[in-house]
Structure formats: structure tokens, C-alpha cells
């Protein structure tokens, strides 16, 4: 038996076109392998050093609405293809949360998009880079 039996796939999305490609790729894998799919959205950073709770609250509310819509769209796409899917929206820093989540829920494959965030990538490396370095399982980076 191959050590790579992908039965529990995690795909991370952020509502971008690149993430849509990653989702599409994950859907194809899950369909082909009859695997279960989890679509994870990580809310990411809130305004640092805020002067009022309102500034934080409003950004948080916008993120909640945006990511909930993205997860609904992902769920519909998966269900249309007859894939067993669950979705989750989690606060935190993208790479850390994806790695922690994959370990906590015993995922055997992580699918992430390759983004280019100029300055952030130069300083910190992309989310995909950091997930690939620290993940507890194989990682597929979709371009």
C-alpha cells in the first residue's frame, strides 16, 4: 500500500483567483480519490495598534462576511461534484493556522495557492512557503 493514500484533504482559500485555482485542484483530487475535503478560510491580520474597538470590529465584520461568502461558494462547488465537504472559518495568522489545523484534524494533504505579495514575501516568505516548511503532511502549491 502506498504511504500516500489521500483521504482527508485540506484546502486553504482567501477568496482570491489564485485560491479558486487551488480549490479547483483540490476538488479534482478529492473527486478522483473519493477523499473528504475540508475548505479552510483564515481571517488573517486585523488592524494592528488600533485606536478604537470600532476600527477592529468593522474590519472583523467585513472579513467574516467576505470569507463566509467564499466558503459558501466553495461548498456549493464541492456539493455539485458530489464531494463530501466541510468548511471552517478560523481567526489567526494564515500559515500558522493552516499548519496547526492540518495536524489537529489529521489531514494527509494540504492544497494552497501560490500568491505573490511583493514586500511581505520578501520579508517573511509567502504563506505557501511557510506552510510547505512546517506542514505535518505533503503540501501541493497551485500556481
Amino acid at each position, binding site marked *: 500500500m502506498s504511504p500516500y493514500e489521500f483521504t482527508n484533504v485540506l484546502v486553504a482559500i482567501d477568496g482570491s483567483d489564485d485560491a479558486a485555482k487551488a480549490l479547483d485542484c483540490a476538488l479534482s483530487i478529492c473527486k478522483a480519490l473519493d477523499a473528504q475535503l475540508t475548505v479552510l478560510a483564515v481571517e488573517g491580520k486585523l488592524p494592528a495598534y488600533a*485606536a478604537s*474597538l470600532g476600527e477592529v470590529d468593522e474590519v472583523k465584520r467585513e472579513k467574516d462576511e467576505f470569507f463566509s461568502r467564499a466558503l459558501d461558494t466553495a461548498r456549493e462547488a464541492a456539493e455539485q461534484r458530489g464531494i463530501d465537504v466541510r468548511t471552517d472559518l478560523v481567526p489567526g495568522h494564515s500559515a500558522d493556522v493552516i499548519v496547526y489545523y492540518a495536524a489537529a484534524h489529521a489531514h494527509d494533504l494540504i492544497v494552497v495557492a501560490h500568491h505573490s505579495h511583493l514586500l511581505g514575501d520578501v520579508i517573511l516568505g509567502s504563506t505557501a512557503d511557510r506552510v510547505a516548511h512546517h506542514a505535518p503532511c505533503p503540501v501541493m502549491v497551485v500556481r
Partner: protein
Amino acid sequence: MDPVQLAAILAAAVLVASMLSVEVGISVALIELALGVALGNAFKLNPDQPWLVFIASFAGVVLTFLAGAEVDPDDFRERFWASVGMGVASFVGPFVVATLVAVGLLGWTTKASLIAGTALSTTSLAVVYAVLVETGLNTVRVGKLIMSACFVTDMCTVIALSAIFLKPTPWFPVFAVVSIVVIVGLPSIAPWFFRRYGDRVIEPEIKLVFFVLFVLMVLGEKANSQAVLPAFILGLVMSRHYQQHRQEQSRLRVVAFALLTPFFFLRGGMNVSLGAVFANLGLLALLAGAKLVPKFGLVFPLARRYAAEHAAFATLLMSTGLTFGTISSLYGLQAHIINRTQFSLLITVVVLSAIVPTAVAQRWFSPDVEIERAVDMRARKRALRTTEPATVTEAGRS
């Protein structure tokens, strides 16, 4: 410079600050403050043009009202005494030490030293809130404790700012009575008023709040007092109403963030003299120490008692400051209690205290939210087990 020209330059700065805030993920207030420093020092813009002073003063009161209105009172009931203990210690320690350092070592006047004590004793509930919400820690006990304690410190700051500089005039009883009337009356008439006149593009509900705040400012000035305390309490008593009417709260925030608060923070920055800061780096370090050392000396032992494993995280977050530190310093400058050099030093310490302790707390001491949830769950189960026998006994008796 012509007022319209200054307004145009500041409007450009406000726009740039908003765009930068979205791009880099730092709060717009901090960027406005930084742009104010840059513009003020590079182009010697006048921060004392009457229109700017007026808008910034009103914005300070609106920010104070919002600080009260954005609090959820239910969050502060759990572990009440622990929050009060940590919150009061977080205020009293830096207040006493910073005041003594300023009056004793720096030779500032007593009033200027009290402004230093007030500005440096603050915590920033908003900075703390962002850190906790971003990681989900706002939903666990340790996060709620830190937020409650920060709120208590804020309350102490507002009381200090109102009480210390009080020199009552014959108008003071009028100010006190009107404050009590609006604090008791506005939550009562708000449901009817907002139902009858709300949800319109002309925003009568925002105009009502602004009218009340202006009345408090006018009477506060006549009474030689400050509108911040009644404005904060008014916000608090209105918070439950805003929780049930999120759209109204959102629209009030839109008006405040778009038109008022940018000028408050820009003006704050414009008053900072970089030359004075760099010429007094030793004093800057001393004032920063006067804020941070007593925070650690008094808050850390209490945090060890109430949140043992996360005492350093709690203490660091309670060492932050931004909005009330800026409000206190600007009040001191406006009332000619402190000069521009003293203001520059205080604002620099306040801004550094928003950034450095937060970064250290997030990088090295942030609790794992999943572990904290599990800890909370075990604590709840233990509490249930200890209450069950009593319930059975009561049932047996009946």
C-alpha cells in the same frame, strides 16, 4: 498658511493614511499620527489653526464616547474583582511613579507631572482587543480577564483626567446635573427617538449624540472641567442600545473615522517636535521606564495570581497605550499645562508603548487558543461537578 490650504494638505494625508492602513495592516490612527509628525516637522504646518483645534477637540470627546459605547458590559462581569485589582494596579502604579519622576527628577511643574502620570498610566483596550480577536483569545477566560482589566484602567484614566484638573466654577453644579440627566435620559429616549427618526440618510440619531456631546463640552468648559468622564459614561450606558442596533453604531463610526478622528491624530502628530525627541532620548527612556517598570511591578504579581501561565502576556498587553494617552497629552498641551517638548516626549512614549509591548507579547508570550479553550472546558466541567451535589440535595429536600 490659509485654512483651506491646510485643510487640503491634511485631506490628502487622511486619504494616504487610509490607503496605507489597508495595504500594511496597521491602524489608520497610528499612520495618521505618523503622517502628522512628518508633515508638522517637514513643512512646519500650524497645528493651532482654530478650525483644526475645534475639530480635534470634538473628535477627542467623540473618541471617548465611542470607547464607552463599544464596550460590552456583560464581558466585564466574569472575574469582576480580578479585573478591578489588575486594572486599578495598572493605573495607580505608573500614575504615581511617572508623576514622581516628572516632578522629582525632571523638574516639571506639578500639573505637568500629573498630565505625565495620567498619559503614561493608560492602557489601550483597542490595541489589546485587536491582538485577542485576531487569535480568537477574546473568547477564552484569560482574554476576557485582560480586556476587563484594561477597561478598568481606562475608567481610572478618564476619572483622573476629569478630577485632577477640576477647578469648579459656579457652572460646575449645572455641568454635573446636565451630565447626570443626559446619562440617565438618553438611553431612555433613544429607542423612541431612533425608531421615530432613525434609518434616514440625514442621520438625526447621530446629530442627537453630537448635540449632547457639544452640550457637555460647552458646560465642561464653563465649569472649568472636562467632558471626557460624562462622555465615556454616556457611551457606556448607550452601549447596550448600540449592540441591538449595529447599523446605527456603524454609521456613527463612519462619520467619526471619516471626518473627525483623522484630524485629532494628525493634529497630535503635528505637535510632536522630532528635534525635541532626539535631543531628549535619555528623558524618553526615563519616561518609558516610569510607565513600564511599575506596570510590571504591580500588574505582573496580580496576573500571576489570576492567569498564572500567561502573566507576562497579560502584563505586556496592559502596558500598551494609545488613544487615552494621546487624549490626555493633547488636553495638557491645549490647556498650556505642558509645553511642546513635554508633549513630544509623552506622545512618543505612548506610541512606543502601543507597538513594543504588543510585538513582544505576540512574538514570545501569546497563549495557544486551543489549549486555553480546553482549559476553560475543564474548568467549566469542574464547576459543574461541584455544583451538582448541591442541586441534588436541594431536589432531595423538596
